[in-house]
């Protein structure tokens, strides 16, 4: 029995040391920090997603300051009476009437910055209300507000007698609403993220094959390591494209067979669906290459399956942080978080795809794709450097290399002066 325990302890000691005495374990150990990052990122993302569409919805009343005051005095009471505190239709904004109030009403209803659900104009006893499809409730609320305003001013009137006769009409929306744009952006982020997490994560164990069968020695002697890394990524991307083409084809087939493709109709990017699909494809390629390069670089440091498994956790958590950040960007276009997510290289493809749904400008995408391509190169170069240093035991460490680069620059600047 004692022998059995002793033997068991010998094996336990080896296994313990094999795990703990590796740099990979440090990453595993620090994984909770990444979890914290995820919590923060997903919290921000969730908050933006929750309040984003709500904040962007609005009703507008075109009225003189006097009428606006009269209506405003009744709005809260009516809202509270009908829906309780915090509930009911979106907030009401009042704007002063322009000479052509009719044109103003149409224009306001098509406002791009917000989802304007209904616009009321004209005298309170005979208002004209326009609403977009599916938002008749908001129009009815405005009509009731006009009625209640007059009724509060003319106390003692019979409840059966109507004081305000509203003319309500529905307007066919030509431009996508803000919330549909945001939903499109969020949808693109989710689809891209799912594809990336499923396909790019495979890069983690790719170089392990070459290391285990010693082919890496042949590769390292024949071609630059950067080429090896790049080739691996391209190969994996090819596999990913086959996957996407297969499932994309199936989905397209399904949508064409279905009588009403309501799902597709809800995708309403501001730049148009064809261009948005092209952009999303480009950004998927960039997301795949960027995250794939990280996974490849980190995974290349692992020498056993055990290490690869340990690396999977922090890598997955990192992906989730990028996802949370990108969802936050999709939920709050133009915000500081969105700008950060668009610039930060590893969330940039997702965040920029989301931007494509809400921002019609094309030039930011050209800049972003260039920026992301630059970071693909940088990430590959760093991955290859770490591999050369950590696995092949050649060259200088990353900090020393950085010091040398800075020293070179300093010397060349000094010489210039």
């Amino acid at each position: 029995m004692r022998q059995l325990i002793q033997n068991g302890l010998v094996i336990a000691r080896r296994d313990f040391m094999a795990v703990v005495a590796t740099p990979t374990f440090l990453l595993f150990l620090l994984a909770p920090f990444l979890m914290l990052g995820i919590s923060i990122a997903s919290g921000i993302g969730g908050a933006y997603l929750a309040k984003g569409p709500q904040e962007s919805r609005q009703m507008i009343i075109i009225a003189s300051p006097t009428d606006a005051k009269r209506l405003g005095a009744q709005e809260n009471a009516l809202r509270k009476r009908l829906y309780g505190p915090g509930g009911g239709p979106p907030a009401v904004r009042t704007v002063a009437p322009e000479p052509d109030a009719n044109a103003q009403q149409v224009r306001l209803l098509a406002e791009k910055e917000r989802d304007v659900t209904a616009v009321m104009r004209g005298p309170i006893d005979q208002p004209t209300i326009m609403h977009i499809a599916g938002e008749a409730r908001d129009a009815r609320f405005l009509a009731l507000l006009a009625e209640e305003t007059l009724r509060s001013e003319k106390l003692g009137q019979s409840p059966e007698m109507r004081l305000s006769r509203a003319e309500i009409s529905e307007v066919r929306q030509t431009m996508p609403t803000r919330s549909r744009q945001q939903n499109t952006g969020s949808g693109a982020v989710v689809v891209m993220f799912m594809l990336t997490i499923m396909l790019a994560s495979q890069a983690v164990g790719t170089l392990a094959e070459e290391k285990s069968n010693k082919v890496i020695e042949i590769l390292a002697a024949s071609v630059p390591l950067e080429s090896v890394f790049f080739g691996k990524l391209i190969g994996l991307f090819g596999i990913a494209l086959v996957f996407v083409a297969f499932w994309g084809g199936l989905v397209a087939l399904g949508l064409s067979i279905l009588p009403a493709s309501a799902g597709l109709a809800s995708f309403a990017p501001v730049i148009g669906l064809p261009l948005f699909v092209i952009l999303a494809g480009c950004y998927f390629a960039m997301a795949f290459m960027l995250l794939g390069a990280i996974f490849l670089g980190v995974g290349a440091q692992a020498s056993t399956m055990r290490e690869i498994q340990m690396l999977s956790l922090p890598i997955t958590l990192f992906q989730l942080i990028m996802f949370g950040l990108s969802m936050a960007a999709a939920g709050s276009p133009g915000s500081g978080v969105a700008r950060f997510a668009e610039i930060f290289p590893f969330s940039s493809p997702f965040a920029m795809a989301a931007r494509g749904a809400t921002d019609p400008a094309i030039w930011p995408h050209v800049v972003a794709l260039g920026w992301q391509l630059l970071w693909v190169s940088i990430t590959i170069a760093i991955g290859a450097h770490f591999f050369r240093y950590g696995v092949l035991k050649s060259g200088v460490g990353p900090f020393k290399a950085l010091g040398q680069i800075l020293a070179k620059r300093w010397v060349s600047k000094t010489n210039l002066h």
Partner: protein
Amino acid sequence: MSVEDDRPVWASGLVKSFGKSQAVRGVSLSVPQGSIYGVLGPNGAGKTTTLRMLLGIIDPDKGERRLLGEANPRNVSHRVGYLPEERGLYPSMKAREAIAFMGALRGLDWSEGRKRADEALEAAGLGYAAHNKIRKLSKGMAQLVQLLGSLIHKPDLIVLDEPFSGLDPVNQELLEKLILAERDHGATILFSTHVMGHAQRICDRLSIIAGGKVRFEGTVDEARATLPMRAQYVPCSGEDKVRALLPSDAGQSGKVWRFTVPEGGAERLVMDLVKAGHGIAGLSIERPGLHDAFVKIVGAVNADEADGAT
């Protein structure tokens, strides 16, 4: 043109450390064009590290290197063939594809690579295995496939790290012939080994590395000449009195005496033995082999290092 530009492989003062352990401590090499050059040394001498530095797989901490006249070995990788010490092939690849793949890595067109692979496999007697996956080949066969892969793009310089290890005697002879044939076609061959027989048979020049330094550089004959000739002598009679006439290092095994031939030659000694009436029942004078020279050189290094350690 300077020597370093002229030589296919030239290195000066290469130093490489792994952590606190210095694997190579200032190795210099100069391999003549069209020669077979051996890098000999015991296990852990720094042979593989030296070859990997020369090929640019790893960079030296100090020192200079030139491969086919280029300071950056990467620039001439398409003219170099390399068989690493640890053999590596993709197990799921077919033999023919594996060879073509290795050619493609060195810039050879895939279709041309496949064509050459078929020819090379046929010539090596492995034509029947061209479409077999690597995992189905024996270790020796897979090694041969890898060797063919490293030669498929007809390189000007062939670097082989312990090429004979793992091969049976028949394949070892086949490999020797292959190396000689490549040399005859104008290629320069640099190979490492710790098996002296191969080096003695095929090397034009060699370096003996021990303890991370080059301890000898020259031809095989020059290496052997570092040791004096040895004689084996069998007297006809008076065996008990022979000892007094022989050199001090003489030792007896049965009727045979073995000793180092004196510096002036064996003639005088032979005359003395005949005059003394011992006669000559048998006499042979042998040059020591490369193996002996290697053992002496490496042994001296080991002794020095042991002294240094104490």
